[in-house]
C-alpha cells in the first residue's frame, strides 16, 4: 500500500492544500495528544496514591478489641477483654481464609516526652511488639541487620529493630547501629536491625520509621501482659473474600471470649482490602472516564478528517473521474483515499503521541524531583502498553476516517469527469 509511487501520489494530494490538511490533521493530533496527557495524569495519580501504601499488604485487615457492648453468659456489658496467643493458634488451625495472622502489642508514646535514648541523645517514639510475620503484612526495607526472628520470640530476647528516624535522631547516622544498646521506656535493648518503610502514609500505632519494634514476647514480659496482646492483623488468603474472613475471625473470638454473637461493638475492624478495592474502583472509573474523554476527542478529530476529506473528494470529482477514465480500478481509488486518510491520521497521531509523551516526560522529571510531604502525583507517564494501544487506535481512526470518503470517491464514475464542466 505504501510503496514510493503511492506515497508520491498521496503526498501530492495532501501537500496540494497544506492549510486544509494541517487543519484536518490537527483534530487527530489534538485527540491523541489529549488522550496521552490524560492517561499520563491518571497514571500519575494512580502511582502517587499507590506510593503511599507501598509495601503494605492490601488484602489485610486489622482488628482491635474493644469493651463489650452486650451482656452475655452472665458477664456484664462493658467488659474489658483481650485476645491471647491461643486465639492466634485457633485462627491458624481453623480458619483457612486467613493466610497470615499477626498479633501486635503496642506502647503508646508518653505525652510527648522523650522515651528512647542512646547515651544522652533521646527522642519520643512509639513501641510495638510483633512476631516475625509482621514484616509480611507491613513490609519494610532492612537498612541494617535483620528483622525480629523466631529465636528472639522464643527466648524473649531483649533486642529491637528500630525505624530509620529513630536511628537518625537517637543514634545518629555517623555510628554503625548494630549491637548498640538503646534504652526504651527504661529498659535496654540491643539494636539488631534498622528498617525503612516503603510508604510513609501507613500508620499502625506510629509510622514504622518512627517506631521501636520489639519481639512480641519480650514486650509481653516487659509489660506483664502474659500472653495477651493489643490487636491483631491478618491477611486474607487467595480466593477468600475479606469480609467473610473477617466475620469468621470475629465469630471465633466471640466464642472463645464469651462475647455475644450480636455484639458488634466489641471489635473495631479496619478492612484495608475494602478500602483498597474502593481505590481500585475509583482508579478504574477514572481510567474509563479518561479513555471515554480521550476517545471522544479523538473521534471528533476523526469526524473532522472524514468531513474535510468528503469535501475534498467532492472537489476532486473531475480528477477522480479522469483517473477512472484512464483505467484506475475502483480498488485503486479506494486504496488511495484510504491511504491519504491513513497517512494524514498517522502523521498527526504520531506527532500527538510523541509530543504528549515528551511533555509528560518533562513534567514527570519535574514532579519526581520535587520533594513533597503528601505525594499525590508521581511519574505521570503512559506505559508501553498504552502507547501501543494509542498507536493501534491511531491506525484504526485513520481507517475509520477514510471509509466514508473512500465510499464517496468510488461512486464517482469516469463519465462524471467529462460531464462536470
Amino acid at each position, binding site marked *: 500500500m505504501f510503496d*514510493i509511487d503511492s506515497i508520491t501520489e498521496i503526498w501530492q494530494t495532501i501537500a496540494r492544500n497544506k492549510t486544509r490538511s494541517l487543519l484536518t490533521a490537527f483534530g487527530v493530533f489534538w485527540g491523541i495528544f489529549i488522550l496521552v496527557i490524560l492517561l499520563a495524569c491518571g497514571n500519575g495519580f494512580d502511582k502517587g496514591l499507590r506510593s503511599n501504601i507501598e509495601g503494605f499488604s492490601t488484602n489485610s485487615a486489622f482488628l482491635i478489641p474493644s469493651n463489650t457492648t452486650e451482656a452475655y453468659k452472665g458477664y456484664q456489658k462493658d467488659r474489658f477483654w483481650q485476645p491471647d496467643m491461643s486465639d492466634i493458634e485457633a485462627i491458624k488451625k481453623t480458619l483457612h481464609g486467613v493466610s497470615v495472622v499477626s498479633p501486635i502489642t503496642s506502647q503508646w508514646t508518653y505525652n510527648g516526652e522523650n522515651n528512647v535514648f542512646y547515651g544522652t541523645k533521646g527522642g519520643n517514639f512509639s513501641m510495638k511488639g510483633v512476631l516475625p510475620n509482621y514484616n509480611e503484612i507491613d513490609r519494610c526495607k532492612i537498612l541494617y541487620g535483620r528483622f525480629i526472628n523466631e529465636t528472639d520470640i522464643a527466648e524473649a530476647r531483649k533486642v529491637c529493630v528500630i525505624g530509620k528516624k529513630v536511628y537518625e535522631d537517637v543514634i545518629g547516622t555517623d555510628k554503625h547501629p548494630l549491637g548498640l544498646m538503646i534504652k526504651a521506656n527504661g529498659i535496654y535493648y540491643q539494636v539488631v536491625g534498622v528498617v525503612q518503610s516503603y510508604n510513609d502514609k501507613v500508620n499502625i500505632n506510629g509510622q514504622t520509621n518512627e517506631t521501636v519494634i520489639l519481639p512480641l514476647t519480650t514486650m509481653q514480659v516487659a509489660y506483664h501482659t502474659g500472653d495477651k496482646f493489643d490487636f491483631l492483623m491478618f491477611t486474607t488468603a487467595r480466593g477468600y473474600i475479606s469480609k467473610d474472613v473477617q466475620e469468621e475471625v470475629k465469630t471465633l473470638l466471640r466464642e472463645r471470649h464469651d462475647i455475644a454473637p450480636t455484639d458488634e461493638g466489641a471489635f473495631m475492624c479496619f478492612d484495608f482490602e475494602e478500602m483498597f478495592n474502593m481505590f481500585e474502583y475509583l482508579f478504574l472509573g477514572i481510567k474509563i472516564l479518561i479513555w471515554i474523554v480521550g476517545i471522544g476527542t479523538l473521534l471528533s478529530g476523526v469526524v473532522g478528517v472524514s468531513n474535510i476529506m468528503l469535501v475534498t473528494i467532492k472537489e476532486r470529482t473531475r480528477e477522480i473521474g479522469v483517473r477512472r477514465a484512464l*483505467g484506475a480500478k475502483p480498488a*485503486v481509488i479506494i486504496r488511495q483515499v484510504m491511504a491519504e486518510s491513513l497517512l494524514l491520521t498517522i502523521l498527526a497521531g504520531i506527532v500527538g503521541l510523541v509530543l504528549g509523551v515528551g511533555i509528560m516526560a518533562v513534567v514527570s522529571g519535574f514532579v519526581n524531583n520535587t520533594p513533597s510531604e503528601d505525594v499525590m502525583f508521581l511519574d505521570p507517564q503512559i506505559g508501553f502498553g498504552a502507547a501501543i494501544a494509542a498507536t493501534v487506535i491511531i491506525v484504526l481512526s485513520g481507517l475509520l476516517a477514510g471509509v466514508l470518503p473512500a465510499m464517496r470517491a468510488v461512486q464517482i464514475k469516469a463519465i462524471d469527469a*467529462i460531464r462536470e464542466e
Partner: protein
Amino acid sequence: MIKLNNINKTYFGAQPLHVLKGINLDVEEGELVSIMGASGSGKSTLLNILGILDNYDEGDYYLAGQLVKNLSENQAAEFRNKLIGFIFQSFNLIPFKTALENVALPLFYQGVNRKKRNMMAMEYLERFGLKEWAEHYPNELSGGQKQRVSIARALVTSPKLILADEPTGALDSKTSAEVMQILREVNATGITMVIVTHERGIANLTRKIVHLKDGIIESIEENDPDKMDFTKEIK
C-alpha cells in the same frame, strides 16, 4: 474494430429523453471517422458509450471483437486502460501533476514501474515537441500544448482506439490545424480514431463522416482528406 448494433440510450431525468434511437455503425481497424451533428443530437453520448464511460440500454456493442455489455467496473477499467485513449475538449489534465506525470498516469494504472513509465512518457512528449515542458504544470501550458500533452497521455499505452470529443473545441484555428495534423499522423500509424466535432473543417480531414440527427445516423459520408487544401485555414 467497432461494431454497433441497434444501440439505444435513454436518459431518465425529470423527463425521459431518448437520445440514441438505434445506432448501427461499423468502424474498421485503422479508420479515421468523424461524427457530426447539431448540438444535442447525441454525439457525446455515443462517444461515451464507445469509450465504455457510459452504458447503453439496448443493442450490442462489439469492441475489438468482444461484446461490451454489463461489464463490471474492473473490466471496464481494464478495457479503457488497455484499448482506448481519450482526448477531451477541456483536456482534463490533472492540475497538480506535471506534464510528464500526467502522461505517465495511465501506465501507473497498468502497474508499469516508475522508471519505465517516465521514460515512455518522455518519449511521447518528445514526439510532440514537448520535451522542455515535461516538468511544467498544466496551468503553465498553452491550450495547444495541453492538448498535445493529453494526446501523448492517450497514446502512451499504445491503445487500439482513440476517442476524441471536440479535441479542437477549445483551440484557435491555427492550433486546431496543428492538433489535427498530429491526430492524422497518429491515425496513419494504424490506430483507429473517432472524432466528434461540429466543425466541417475538422470533419473534412477524416475519411468517413457520420452525420447524426435526433438520435439516428442520418448519413455516412465518404471523404478524401488528401484533396483538402492545407494551405487554407480550416475554419
